């Protein structure tokens, strides 16, 4: 299945793109997505354990199961204020 992933801040800087499409196995979880990002983009390694994921404007845990066509957002810890 295919998902779209938007990246922000240092995650986007390290990958060199702010949006990408990724192929994942059906029933993949956010944890699977995190692992795949680590394989595909080794430069993300130090950031990877800290990446936060969101779907439909809400944070989702690693156990969250993604649907085909899901729009997922990933970013390192926030620093507003």
């Amino acid at each position, binding site marked *: 299945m295919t998902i779209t992933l938007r990246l922000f801040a240092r995650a986007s800087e390290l990958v060199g793109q702010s949006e990408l499409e990724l192929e994942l196995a059906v029933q993949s979880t956010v944890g699977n997505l995190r692992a795949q990002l680590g394989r595909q983009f080794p430069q993300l390694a130090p950031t990877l354990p800290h990446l936060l994921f969101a779907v439909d404007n809400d944070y989702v845990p690693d156990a969250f199961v993604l649907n085909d066509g899901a729009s997922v*957002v990933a970013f390192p810890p*926030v620093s507003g204020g």
Partner: protein
Amino acid sequence: MTELTHNPIDYTALTEQVRSDQAGAVVLFLGTVRELTGDRQTIALDYDAYPEMAVAKLAELEAEAREQWPVTEIAISHRLGHLELGEVSVAVAVSAPHRGQAFEAGRFLIDELKVRVPIWKKENWADGTTEWVHPGIDAPAAGDST
């Protein structure tokens, strides 16, 4: 009222928005661009956001504050884009019948904003380098792959 803006924050107008005959207390918090972080010197900050989610999370924070305290009005404005030293990056104004409620709700709002709302700042250091700020993650050292 919560918003993101690319324009300078009119914190006087924001404070007036929350003033009310029902409120005996008004608290205003301003976050401003600071020059020194330890011994490193900041020239400017660039703020970026995931706007759809940031707006949703700000509204969620307002609702949570209203559940916990008898707040009269809340106004939050967060600036995005390029900010020079001393500029206001965020303003949180809260009114309530009594000062304890206003202070507590204001403290909750800014503290939670800083951990939950998807906004990021990038340091423009005096040595010419730039660096995203991500609490809990060390900045990658140039040329260091470890």
